[in-house]
């Protein structure tokens, strides 16, 4: 019984990780239609930002502060990834709107450059980020059923990110401008919206979200130059399955792929589980090519 309960928890936890990793892509790929192969590298940048914040805390601040470094690491990851995303948009992406194949090639090149850059700065071996003490251990439902605090914390982070995105996209003036530009660029521009600026900010925001995902991933996995490559296929799959352009779709896609992965892995093994998930997703897309949440109208969301 415990095994199955734990398996359900694992499924939700893996879903939350997929969602967090895919939220940024839902914006850069989903809304802006850029096939951003460097998305994984922004996750990696976020992870290294957390590493730097950790080192700063352990070297320059009293030891009692160390446990709170993670609260500084989250905004630092967001800002660093966001600023680099903004630079990338200004230098490369803005020349490539509407040319998805070119953007795929260019961002793939950028991803290799960023990986090698990380290798030059931080060295080739993986680095270690120590989790704060209060995240170690597990919530004991009863012996045999332990829910790791880290995974619970990541679920909270996903919920917080979603709330922020929801308010930003659907309840703020800025979100209205973004959606206007993405839906009809010429019309938005003629109404006085600075579309270039909106593009840059939106891309930076999406990249920043990837940075937050990277920060969260330091709790669970490795921090190395190729960290992002492990997530890039899954995150694209989540966005495509959910329906390109729909934030709700990304959430649903992340949930389906996450729980599907863990359930099938439990019943078969990790390799076959992944194969089955991908096969099911491909079959599903044959039936509904636009994903779970299809957008019929000219409006992109809801």
């Amino acid at each position: 019984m415990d095994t199955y309960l734990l398996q359900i928890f694992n499924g939700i936890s893996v879903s939350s990780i997929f969602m967090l990793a895919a939220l940024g892509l839902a914006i850069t790929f989903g809304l802006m239609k850029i096939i951003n192969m460097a998305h994984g590298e922004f996750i990696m940048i976020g992870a290294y930002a957390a590493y730097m914040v950790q080192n700063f805390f352990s070297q320059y601040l009293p030891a009692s502060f160390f446990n709170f470094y993670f609260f500084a690491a989250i905004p630092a990851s967001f800002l660093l990834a966001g600023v680099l995303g903004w630079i990338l948009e200004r230098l490369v992406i803005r020349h490539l709107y509407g040319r998805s194949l070119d953007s795929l090639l260019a961002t793939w090149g950028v991803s290799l450059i960023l990986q090698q850059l990380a290798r030059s700065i931080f060295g080739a071996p993986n680095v270690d980020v120590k989790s704060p003490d209060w995240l170690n251990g597990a919530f004991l439902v009863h012996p045999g059923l332990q829910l790791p605090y880290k995974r619970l914390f990541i679920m909270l982070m996903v919920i917080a990110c979603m709330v922020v995105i929801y308010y930003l996209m659907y309840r703020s003036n800025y979100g209205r401008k973004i959606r206007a530009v993405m839906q009809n660029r010429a019309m938005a521009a003629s109404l006085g919206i600075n579309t270039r600026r909106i593009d840059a900010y939106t891309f930076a925001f999406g990249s920043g979200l990837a940075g937050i995902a990277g920060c969260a991933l330091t709790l669970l996995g490795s921090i190395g130059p190729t960290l992002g490559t492990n997530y890039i296929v899954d995150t694209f799959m989540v966005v495509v399955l959910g329906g390109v352009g729909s934030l709700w779709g990304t959430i649903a896609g992340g949930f389906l792929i996450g729980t599907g992965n863990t359930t099938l892995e439990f019943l078969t093994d990790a390799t076959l589980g992944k194969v089955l998930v991908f096969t099911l997703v491909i079959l599903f897309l044959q039936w509904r090519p636009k994903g779970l949440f299809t957008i019929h109208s000219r409006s992109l969301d809801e």
Partner: protein
Amino acid sequence: MKINFFSKMKKSATITMTALFVSSALLSGCGNSQVSQSSDTGTDSKDAIKVGILHSLSGTMAISEVSVKDAEMMAIDEINAKGGVLGKKIEPVTEDGASDPAVFAEKAKKLLQQDKVATIFGCWTSASRKAVLPVVESNNGLLWYPVQYEGMESSPNIFYTGAAPNQQIVPAVDWLLKNKGKKFFLIGSDYVFPRTANKIIKAELQAEGGQVVGEEYTPMGHTDYSTIINKIKEEKPDVVFNTLNGDSNVAFFKQLKDAGITEKDLITCSVSIAEEEVRGIGAENMAGQLVSWNYYQTTDTPENKDFVTNYKARYGQDRVTDDPIEAAYDAVYLWAAAVEKAGSTDVDKVKEAAKDLEFKAPEGTVKIEGENQHLWKKVRIGEVQPDGMIKEVWSTPDPIRPDPFLKTYDWAKGLAN
């Protein structure tokens, strides 16, 4: 042994190549001083002997291979400082295998045919070695391969300075059976090394009264082990034998600890985690767990004290040495000694001279076994310490004869094919 290339890279070979060109061009522009540029002349100059260094300096495997390359460069500089070989300086020609077996084969061909190197030191993954093997055989070149691997191979043109299975996996299983319990759970990355290693382990367990209660493989780069940890919890094994590779180890050990499983509840024994990897996993996540190798940074020999001091002085106090780093360092010295003995860099003469050649290595004296060109090595089981170092808990009294095909084990009949 380790392999780490992406299948998705294969699909878009042209994209990969283009992007690689762009990034490598950019990097060489950045002045990466340790990568010496190969010259165009392609002939041996009067006072230098060219040798090839062929490792992944970019891509996923760079994590492991860069420090191995560093060890080889250090050995070359040390030998040069003492006057070189045959009165000539050794001149390294470095090439980047880019974590792609096809690139390894291409660069090996370039090193042998264009640069006319006397030997190549290189490779890490079994896939890259298997790709370079036909190239060195058809060009009658030499490759010194520094990493433990799955065995079942003995090329006349390759010297293997890492462990054969009977110098790492087999004695580890034997020791675990005697000291930790009979029920084994096997977990590995899904490619040739773990699958071959587990075939050997299963045959050995069956012959010696052990039991396999689970066997799981995960794709390279797998990052979520919650489900497998759940399966392990259910099976309650005495030992988890771990042949996971690369980043996956970090995820596995971090998540194992979070699930509330410590080395007191469940002992793991890993064969692909050395000091370098422990740093990335975090010593706090795997203190008390076991590993099996032939060398640790803490190995107590006078040669090792110098080796560790020099390596740290050269590359930084925060760097660590480990088994493949040491094996790569030995390879350069063994080749140089064979060349001195042969009085020539001619491959056939060097191979002849290398037979039974001994070297006082940091791990203790190693000897080249003429029959299969592997090394006699001591086997050491170690325990990861909270400071990231590995403490030897058991070792064979003497170096073990290499037996890549496990011919001396009855239960291994039928494995080598």
